[in-house]
């Protein structure tokens, strides 16, 4: 009997070990523990034994039965787990799908960043026309005709055909041009609004000049204008410093303000910045206090209001921020460039 028990135990355990699927395990379980199994037969035959033998053998048989049941259950559980995970498991190391999403042009991105910063300082954002007249682009900004100051802005002029059969012919018809800066919007805005106000004007401007890595025939500017009572140059300094600090975020930034000349401001200044440890001053903004002749042109009283104006180049800031070496990339239409943003 002893021998039988050991044999049963051994062969059952071997069978359990070898099994690979839960279904097969059920079959084997029936074979070893089912009603017709050897063990059941032995248990059933206990009643034919003497009390003494029964006492001796009974507990052993019961114990074996329990042991085998435990082994089967454990094995079944293991098999079920490994079996199901094998079937459902994915190879998470495979590459993700390529999701096609579009890219916003870096200049649009920079423009919006700038707008958001100024918006947070209570500036409004307005735009103006790209085709301008001489008056708004030059005269009203204290850049008179036949003055060499105009040479600071190389201009594209539009070809215009004069109307012939017109009686009320004006001697010197005004000429149309592509705006050379966003500053004419200073005039247009002030013609229609009263101070106090603070605005920025992003927009495309044009220069008649040879293109190279830092010059383009069309590019973007952002004009700023803040007018009110007792607006000061010290206020201007505060606003632009806040702007640049926010724009360049965590980078260490130093400022340099130095004299400059634009006919529509007095005093006129140039703003340079130095980023991180680069050690190079970068010219980033022309600015100044709005000239009294500009206020005169829009019908403000220059003794009542003061204000400051500034202009910055979008491409220039984008080039500094993203380390882009050539301005012409912005207008190349090259998706290998655009898709980096």
């Amino acid at each position: 009997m002893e021998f039988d028990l050991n044999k049963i135990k051994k062969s059952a355990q071997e069978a359990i070990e070898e099994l690979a699927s839960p279904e097969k395990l059920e079959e084997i379980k029936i074979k070893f523990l089912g009603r017709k199994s050897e063990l059941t037969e032995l248990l059933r035959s206990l009643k034919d034994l003497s009390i003494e033998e029964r006492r001796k053998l009974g507990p052993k048989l019961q114990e074996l039965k329990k042991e085998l049941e435990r082994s089967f259950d454990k094995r079944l559980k293991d098999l079920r787990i490994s079996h199901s995970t094998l079937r459902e498991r994915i190879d998470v190391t495979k590459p993700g799908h390529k999701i096609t999403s579009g890219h916003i042009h870096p200049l649009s991105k920079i423009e919006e960043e700038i707008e958001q910063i100024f918006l947070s300082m209570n500036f409004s954002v307005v735009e103006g026309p790209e085709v301008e007249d001489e008056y708004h682009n030059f005269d009203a900004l204290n850049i008179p005709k036949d003055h060499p100051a105009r040479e600071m802005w190389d201009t594209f002029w539009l070809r215009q055909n004069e109307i012939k059969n017109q009686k009320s012919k004006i001697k010197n018809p005004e000429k149309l041009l592509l705006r050379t800066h966003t500053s004419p919007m200073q005039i247009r805005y002030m013609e229609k609004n009263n101070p106090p106000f603070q605005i920025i004007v992003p927009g495309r401007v044009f220069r008649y000049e040879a293109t190279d890595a830092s010059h383009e025939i069309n590019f973007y500017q952002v004009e700023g204008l803040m007018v009110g009572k007792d607006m000061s140059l010290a206020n201007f300094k505060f606003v632009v410093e806040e702007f640049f600090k926010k724009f360049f975020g965590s980078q260490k930034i130093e400022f340099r303000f130095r004299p400059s000349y634009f006919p529509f401001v007095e005093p006129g200044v140039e703003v340079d910045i130095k980023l991180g440890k680069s050690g190079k001053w970068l010219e980033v903004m022309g600015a100044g206090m709005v000239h009294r002749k500009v206020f005169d042109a829009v019908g403000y009283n220059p003794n009542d209001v003061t204000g400051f104006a500034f202009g910055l180049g979008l491409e220039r800031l984008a080039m500094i921020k993203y380390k882009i070496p050539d301005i012409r990339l912005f207008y190349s239409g090259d998706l290998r460039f655009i898709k980096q943003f």
Partner: protein
Amino acid sequence: MKFSYKLLKQLVPQIKNQNELVDKLTMHAFEIDSVKGDTIDIKLPPNRYSDAGSHIGIAREIAAISNYKLKTKNYGQKEKNKKKSYFNVKIQDKNLCPRYTAQYFENIKISASPKWIQDVLKTCGLRPINNVVDIMNYVMLETGQPLHAFDYDKLYAKGGKQPTIIIRKANKGEKIISLDGEKYNLDPDVLVISDEKEVLAIAGIKGGKIAEVDKNTKRIIVESANFDPVNIYKTSKKLLLSTDASLRFSRNLSPELAILGLNRAGQLLIEIAKASSGAVIDVYPKKQSKKIVKFDTERFRKFIGLGLDFKTFKNYFESLGFIVKVPADQLTNSPINQFFVEVSLFRVDIETFEDLAEEIVRLYGYGKLKSVPPYAFLKPSGFEDQIVLKNKIRKILTGIGLSEIYNYSFISDKEGELDFGFAKNKLIELENPISSQFKYLRPNLEIGLVKNISDNSRFFNEVHIFEIGKIFSAGGGPADGGEIGKVFSAKGGSAYGGQAGKETLALGMILSDKNQETFFKLKGIISALFKKIGLVNYSFTESEANVLLIKSGNKFLGSIRKKYDSPKKQISSAEINLDELLVLIEGEHEFRPLPKFPSVMRDISIAVLESAKVGNIIEEIQEANMKYIEDVDLIDEYDLTKSNSSADKGVSYTFRIIFQAPDRTLTDQEVDKEMEKIISILKNKFRASLR
């Protein structure tokens, strides 16, 4: 403008080195373009030529900035007794020549000029010629006043009398051969210097060959005059003749410089060319008046944001050679907060309080100025609607997978001549294009986007891009002038064939795919875009082959067109007028209650001739019952000519129709009835057969 460091150092010996000079000028006066050897190239603003377009001027600046001493020279000539003048001066046009000073010199020995003069000339980019010419140029560099020397013996002397220098407008048809041998035709807008016979020089611009100083010259007249800047500027532009003299005169020089220049030239001629002089002639019909500007320290504090005391102001102004005058009633005030400043006559740029304020703050240093937050009038800030729309479109389209492009605002002559669906006379042309590549303003965005496709197709199988930008065309209405904005035409009626120009904000999109249909993808994108930006009321209408017009009422919003269709590649593009669109956008739409009852879905397959338009069929189905038909969609199509049965003709379409009633569940009978109605309509209108 080029300057000699050596000469500046002579004028202000306290300057330590070039770096100090460059740094101080940069931070307190002018931008420095470059430094090369002895040459310092200074970017001089056009309004500072009078006082700072000279070594003395720059020396004065650096002395004022650093509180250094300016080693001034005494330029006065010692007038011995009464001298003879040897010639007369007659100014005919006083407006164009506010001052004319000149002097006769004889016993000139023409030779090379001394090295120190030649060195300064070379440093400043001028070529030494001979002592007389070099002295003229040197004095210009030192004082800022252009000078000219005429050979006295070459002047016409009427009847043996002493010659007369006449400053007048040129006569029609007059000509001059310049010192370089170039011929110029003159007209009455040009101011000239002449004797009683012919033109000797174009005033303030260039001398003529006739009275040229040459190696045999013995007697000369030195001219040191002042001319009207606008006239010089215009003449220089018209004759395409730009000289050192014209550059300076057109930037408005003070007439006070004239005598300074003449005296300095006289000094050097006597000293170097061993000349002896005649009397100084000074005709000064339009004497420059004293310029006195009121200054208010409190106003300065408010304007600049910096408080300084009277003594500081006074020191700064005096360092610039200005005179501070305190009115009697202020003398008892402590502190003095109002006074007058008499500005140096060389400073033609200073007219107002703000000009004086700039002088103070730049000498003080912008860097030392504290940043002060402004008191601002708080009002809601925001973006113009147009900007909001642009930003929205950018976000929606990039979300759908399109990338944004920026193209040039110009197209080439070739592109302008190709037929892009617009008439050539509607193009806006540049008067001065930079090249034939950029001759016209772009009439649409498509031209640029099509080019982007071909440029990018080397690297990408699919190119899905868009651009938002201004486009330009003639035809904005009659050119009656004045208004710029969406419509532009200038006062005085300049136009494009009698029409104004139009500037329009447009959205261009283009899809290029390999082996994939693009037109309906684009149409779908546009529908999705319109839905998201809140455009409800619009329709698609077929116009010519492969072109779909987008309209709202009778407003034309744009179009979608199939550009290119081959098995390999398919290109479709669309262009939308955002100015028109902006007006039509309805903004926020209200919530629509969710349907309370289930909808019923039915499919119907019909065969129709190829000429039947799906758009029309869907429209007819929809109109069969506006109340219950919620949606109609094309879900399948099949070209019957490709089927095996030769009896089949035309196309088979399957439509899915969704029925929905707001107040109940529609019964099968009701829907069946509607379907019958639809079938009979389709049979009637499209000769459709059920399949």
